[in-house]
């Protein structure tokens, strides 16, 4: 099926939810409201004509100062059977940075959503194990947000300070007979 037709089908089924459909370089992305994302994903997965069985990727985007709602969660879907793809973008505001987890549909999204939480602080409701994944548990701040400095925060991470302290103590250690 043509990708634009898929977007039309989503629009037909969920007329209230689709905000915008864009095409660039042959790839179609549909911007959605976040409230019924799980329902839309389940529809895309279960409908035999669409059958998006393979979720390529989920990632967050920080649109600081560019859009009214600060965050976007981007889903790349692909159907191995029909060989078509679509990109879904769900808008998430900063005040209530949360969205439903799509883990009931694709179980492999587990770590993608954890990473998105790790990097942007977006909470995935219904996720069974939402912890930081790439960064340490006690890390402060969300690194991929646009207001996070590239060189890292001024305050060093507590775990690193412990290592430095240990190294210093070992350097000063003197052998006694």
């Amino acid at each position, binding site marked *: 099926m043509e990708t634009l037709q898929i977007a039309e089908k989503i629009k037909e089924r969920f007329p209230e939810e689709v905000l915008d459909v864009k095409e*660039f*370089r042959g*790839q179609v*992305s549909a911007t959605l409201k976040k409230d019924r994302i799980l329902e839309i994903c389940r529809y895309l997965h279960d409908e035999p004509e669409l059958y998006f*069985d*393979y*979720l*390529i*990727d989920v*990632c967050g*985007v*920080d649109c600081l100062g*560019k859009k009214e709602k600060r965050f976007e969660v*981007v889903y*790349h879907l692909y159907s*191995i059977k029909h*060989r078509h793809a679509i*990109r879904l973008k769900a808008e998430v505001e900063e005040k209530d940075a949360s969205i439903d987890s799509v883990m009931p549909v*694709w*179980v*492999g*999204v*587990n*770590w993608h959503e954890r*990473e998105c939480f790790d*990097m942007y602080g977006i909470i995935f409701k219904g996720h069974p194990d939402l912890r930081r*994944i*790439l*960064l*340490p548990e006690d890390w402060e701040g969300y*690194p*991929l947000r646009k207001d*996070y400095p*590239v060189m890292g925060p001024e305050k060093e991470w507590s775990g690193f300070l412990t290592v430095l302290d240990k190294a210093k103590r070992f350097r000063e250690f003197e052998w006694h007979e």
Partner: protein
Amino acid sequence: MEDIEKPFETRELTINLGPQHPATHGVLRLVLNLDGETVVKCTPYVGYLHRGVEKLGENRTYFAALPLSDRLDYISSMNNNVGYVNAVEKLFGIEAPERAKFIRTIVAEMSRLSSHIIWLGTHVLDIGATTPFLHAMAQRERLLDLFEMLCGARLTVSYPRVGGVRNDISQEFLDKLYEFILEFPDRMDDYETLVTENRIWKDRTVGVGVISAEEAVNWGLTGGTLRGSGVDYDVRKYAPYDAYDKVEFDIPIGKNGDCYDRYVVRVEEMRQANRIIKQCIEKLPAGPVMADSPKFTLPSKDMVLKDMEHLIHQFILITKGPTVPEGEVYMGTEVPKGELGFYFISDGTGRPYRMRVRAPSFIHASVLPRLSEGGLVADVIANIGTIDIVLGECDR
């Protein structure tokens, strides 16, 4: 044994596998809850190699972020470069010339061979066979020498460029490569004699870490890990890039989705890679190796040294970056580990607004608990080897 009325009192044991463990292929840490020899629960911890590649990429121009992709999957950096430049070219709306496409296909398949050789060597080494490792590494050395001949670097190559490749390949290189290609199938036969029908190897891998086709797709597995379960999804066939639509090759698939099938698939993939390189060398067209679109590609070095206009042109492209149309592009390529995707959002400046790396190793590491739970501790090692992860790519 009948004398014992009460069985031994047993309790669950928690052990830590990694991050410093030779069988984890990097810095992967697994916390295993064991009941005797059986794994009850397996929790992977990743992130020890996190360098913030995505954040760094957002703060560099499209040209300057290319070397970052080398450092993802550091044993097949050529494939990562090819994936990166293909995604950027799609965003720019340019196309590399035919000769460059063929060269990229050749080097990508060479890199696939060298990566699979490492996988074969270490995977069988983990399970107990030392000999194939030593022999396989010797062949990899030859491939790395060829890379050195081509671009001066062995591992972090950065050879493909946006719009083509860095330099043309020499006849000497082609001759040496062709010699290697003719010889390699015999070497493969040697390894297969040692492993494929080996009784111990089969005992350790058949029926271990089984995952069905449907489940594998639902988990988002790609590459050899998915094809071992019997799904013929391969980006090179489904959405051909570079010269893959101009060469003939087969996609080997497994049946049972266990460690053994994944092994058979990858070994066959090496033979197919060999076949692709051979065809590419034979069909290699003549012509330029860099696209002629001055807005997006760097001028050649000798022109920069001779001519003022070209110098200015290079200076502006390097410092400001090209002016890119606003939009977003996702492009997946088949790397030895699976599907490596780059997702760019452009806001019209010379730097990507968002650069996302879809790393296959990240997903494959997440499936470890599913494969390992309920099995034996020794099978965890087989499972780590069979999903073929590189932690540099997993942690980005």
